[in-house]
């Protein structure tokens, strides 16, 4: 167990190794470690952000869906109203048309009746004249008795 120069040699080697380690080994490894740490932290933050974004998007889509549903319901209601109105209007129209037709038909009937009546009246007048002629055995001068005949026709 001799104490000798070996001690100083070892101290010099120690010094050189420590300096080398400090300059060329420690910094790159620590840098890599810190960079990875940062990467992981960034990745975690990004995933957090993505999760939050997803939540927001889901909320937004739900909101939009709700709005669309409301809108659709509004449209349907409007359409229903409109349909009811159209049905009502067409009913009205139909009724009016019917009434008009009835009116027309009535007027026509009236006219026919009047025509028939007039024709009948004329015929009756003729028949009456003929009858009277038969009874009187003479002819009745139509022009002379026109007044009387017309009176008669009006009575019928």
């Amino acid at each position: 167990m001799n104490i000798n120069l070996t001690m100083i040699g070892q101290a010099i080697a120690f010094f050189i190794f420590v300096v080398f380690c400090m300059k060329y080994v420690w910094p790159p490894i620590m840098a890599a470690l810190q960079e990875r740490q940062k990467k992981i932290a960034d990745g975690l933050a990004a995933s957090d952000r993505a999760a939050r974004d997803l939540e927001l998007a889901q909320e937004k889509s739900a909101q939009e869906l709700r709005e669309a549903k409301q809108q659709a319901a509004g449209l349907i209601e409007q359409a229903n109203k409109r349909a009811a109105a159209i049905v009502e209007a067409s009913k009205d129209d139909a009724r009016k048309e019917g009434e008009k037709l009835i009116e027309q038909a009535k007027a026509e009937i009236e006219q026919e009746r009047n025509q028939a009546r007039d024709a009948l009246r004329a015929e009756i007048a003729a028949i009456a004249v003929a009858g009277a002629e038969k009874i009187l055995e003479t002819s009745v001068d139509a022009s002379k008795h026109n007044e009387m005949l017309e009176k008669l026709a009006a009575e019928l």
Partner: protein
Amino acid sequence: MAGSASEYIQHHLQNLTYGKLPAGYERADGTVVEQAGWTLAQSATEASDMGFMALHIDSLGWSVALGVLFLFFFRMAAKRATSGQPGGLQNFVEVMVEFVDQSVKETFHGKNKVIAPLALTIFCWVFLMNLMDLVPVDFLPQIFHLMGLEYMKVVPTTDVNITLGMSLSVFFLIIYYSLKVKGVGGFLGELTLHPFSSDNLILKILLVPVNLLLEGVSLIAKPISLALRLFGNLYAGELIFILIALLPLWAQWTLSVPWAIFHILVITLQAFIFMMLTIVYLSMAHEDSH
């Protein structure tokens, strides 16, 4: 190999020493050194007679080789370090770096760019040097013997010079940072005005030598204990491996295997303790609590 057990042990505990022999020294083979010069020691006596002017080539060589090995792998990983998916080597290196960084952060709260790399170097290097203890005791010495080198001690940390070299470096760092952080006055004050202090000026001055003695001893004890703890553990471990190697071949594994398994714990623990104590001492040097 040497004949008797004690020679075998002695032989295994002798470093390959390259040192300066004085002129007129009579060597082991009987020749006399005519001119003072550097040469390889041929015996333990010669090695000790070389005194301070000698180098343990084996300890230094292995420790430097292991340090280079450590830095080679870590540098390779550092060069390829990516913040993406790490490969196997980078994974391992990152685990080590994070472990050391964590240990430093738990103990040392100041700002110092040296301490963490210093701790990493200490831990990995000391661990690798200790790891040489698990190589069978005769394996490498035998190979070097065939290459013509008489002595070869492969575990650098069983050489007190190696552990002292490191712990004294740490000691100088302690002094350096104490002076840097607290200033000369602050550091001297810490050495002389604590733990005993008084409001009375005369009593305070009287207490200075007592404090200086206590604090001085505790300061000096730091590097000594640091070095001797590591050296003692590894030296004892190595010695036991050598003793086990003396047993008959068929019985060796019954002891060497359990001891080796236990030693895995010891070498890791000793490397960790050396690193932790370095961090603690340096963090104490940075604290201006007094």
